[in-house]
């Protein structure tokens, strides 16, 4: 009987034999952590080679670069205070992306959130003891308002939200400039930023370094979003829609309702991020407070594959890369372009390590 040739689509004849690319089942968490760590390590090694090639002395490299960051309380505080708002915007992106609403307008919603908070602060609205809470609520409402129009256009007219949310960023930014060069400019100096927030309008310090409540708030919000996506009924329905929208529709899931709910939540969280940055870090509304957050949030959500815990991890990674990038410049006087190259290498290595979580390469024959 003639042997039947079995076609092996994914098989290639490699140098040592044949390799198959196989989809893995679920990989245990511990093993996943190991794979991602290997990715980070590889990224660090490649970066070290790059630095050495550009003339940095290899001795003490690890010591100055890694140990210096994690052994200094101040640097740890710097990482955490940057990671907290990054986590919030990463969660905001996650909520929208889970609902397949491509919210590229996080930056605009951050700006509007901060504008909402500042509006409350400027008008001294409500009792002073409740001011900070009122500001947070106003920021969330403002963030929702800023996503509402693209959301409406998407649901009603099928207008592509990637374009509309992106363009809303520019409108938000120019509105911010309009306020800061106009009625909200600092009455003391006539310069284009809002007046400093009063003490009751700032996030409370937690008493360690210069950290404030933003870190605990970020942790709580990670848990909330994890519950919402992983354990609540809405999360269940959303997973259903995410994996098979047609089937979900046929089963009577109200897809539009879910999209509206999660997109609004995304806008509210982005607005809250704007509140956190302006009240927790800048202590006033400035022209540049939002820089580096909006698009980092999108990057973080993609890297984290919409997993809220992974969002926190990648937010910290991005913050570490920022502080490490500065220390590289300070220590070695390398140009910023080199720093960006190193940051990109590490991010790509980590993203690529994901591949080995979902696939395995097996040698056959």
């Amino acid at each position, binding site marked *: 009987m003639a042997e039947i040739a079995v076609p092996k689509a994914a098989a290639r004849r490699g140098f040592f034999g044949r390799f198959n690319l196989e989809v893995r089942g679920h990989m245990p968490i511990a093993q996943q952590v190991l794979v991602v760590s290997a990715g980070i390590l590889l990224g660090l090694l490649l970066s070290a080679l790059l630095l050495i090639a550009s003339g940095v002395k290899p001795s003490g490299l690890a010591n100055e670069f890694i140990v210096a960051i994690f052994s*200094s309380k*101040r*640097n740890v505080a*710097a990482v955490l*205070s*940057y990671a907290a708002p990054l986590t919030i915007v990463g969660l905001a992106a996650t909520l929208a992306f889970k609902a397949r609403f491509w919210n590229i307008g996080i*930056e605009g919603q951050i700006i509007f959130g901060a504008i909402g908070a500042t509006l409350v602060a400027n008008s001294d609205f409500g009792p002073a003891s409740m001011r900070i809470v009122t500001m947070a609520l106003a920021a969330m409402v403002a963030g929702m308002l800023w996503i509402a129009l693209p959301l409406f256009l998407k649901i009603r007219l099928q207008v592509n939200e990637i374009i509309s949310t992106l363009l809303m*960023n*520019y409108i938000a*930014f*120019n509105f911010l*400039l309009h306020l800061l*060069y106009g009625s909200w400019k*600092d009455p*003391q*100096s*006539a*310069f*284009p930023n809002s007046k*400093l927030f009063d003490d009751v309008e700032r996030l409370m310090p937690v008493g360690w370094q*210069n950290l404030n409540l933003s870190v605990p708030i970020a942790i709580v919000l990670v848990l909330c979003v994890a519950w919402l996506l992983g354990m609540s009924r809405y999360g269940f329905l959303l997973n259903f829609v995410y994996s098979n929208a047609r089937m979900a529709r046929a089963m009577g899931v109200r897809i539009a309702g879910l999209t509206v709910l999660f997109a609004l939540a995304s806008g509210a969280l982005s607005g809250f991020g704007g509140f956190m*940055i302006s009240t927790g*870090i*800048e*202590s*006033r509304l*400035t*022209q*540049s*407070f939002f*820089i*580096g957050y909006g*698009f980092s949030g999108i990057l973080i959500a993609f890297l984290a594959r919409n997993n809220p815990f992974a969002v926190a991890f990648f937010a910290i990674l991005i913050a570490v890369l*920022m*502080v490490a990038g*500065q*220390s590289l*410049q*300070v*220590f070695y*006087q390398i*140009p*910023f372009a080199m*720093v960006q190259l190193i940051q990109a290498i590490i991010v790509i290595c980590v993203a690529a390590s994901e591949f080995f979580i979902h696939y395995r390469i097996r040698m056959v024959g």
Partner: protein
Amino acid sequence: MGMTRLSSTLAWGLALSVVPAVIHAEPFKLEGDPNPALVIFSQKNDGGWSQSLDEARAKVEKELGITIPVVENVPENATAIRPAVELFIDRGSNIIIGSAFGYSDTFLELAKQYPNVAFINPAGTTNAANLQSIYGRTYESQYLCGMAAGALSKSGKIGFVAANPFGLVNWTVNAYALGAQKINPDATVTVVFTGAWNDPVKERAATEALIEQGIDVVGQHVDSPTPQIVAQEKGVYGTGHHRDLSEFSTATQCSSVWVWDKYLTPTIQKIAAGEWETSPYGAFLSIKEGGTDIACCGDAVSEDVKKQIMDERQAIIDGKQVYAGPLSDRDGKERVKEGEVLSDADLWGMDWYVKGVISQQ
């Protein structure tokens, strides 16, 4: 995206009354030899504001025989500024030089936290016993370049591309017009505000529109050299800001240029000698003290005009005031009385234009 750099650039200035005077009991004392470091908010080779600081850094290094490390692309938010500065301080830096308006609040906090470190912030607004914000009297150099523009313009119609309409931009517009009118009393300056410090697309559109309306010299107070490049393309003349923009365009005949080293070198020496006393209102530097100066002039400016400009420059160094009375705004309202000079506070708050300035508002 493009938005990220906008805010910034430059040039804002030190406000007069921003932070109430901290009590300056005694001059600031530096421990050890001066060890400065520079923190730049954008790329150090941006062709404009940041590059002018980096070039000054190189000159100061040479003059004082020290090395000044630099870190670039530190955006104007506290999460980025603080670790950069603290890393330098950990490494032994004891003079921190900033570069942006948006560093003001964080530098004030850091100055309180590190009383043994001296802070200098170009374009800042905050001051303390160990923190000095500095800015230049850019109206002096823009006035001199305005003279070149007045001489170069055949039609008497001059254009000006500016960032945002507030004090420190308005004073360059007005001074530019006054300079042009010194040569040609009928000259007008049509100003377009782009609403951004660095937006080459809008700057190109504004410059092209101005040239279509018949202007034949373009001045500027924005960060990119785009207006000068467009001027060259369209065959008209121009004048630059921040640095000598003839590097980018043959149209450029005069530039208002930053000369920070003229201030930084003696200041660092004073800090080292324990003679540095900060002003609670910031240091507002004239040509003489090392704010801006001019790079003048190109081949198109006649020897006669060039001599007039250089004579006027000398007069300013000797004490001549650009905003001396009697001076009225374009609506006829008197702004400076005969025999008086516009105060610094009125300069920072300038929201009016002199006769001959045509603007959107």
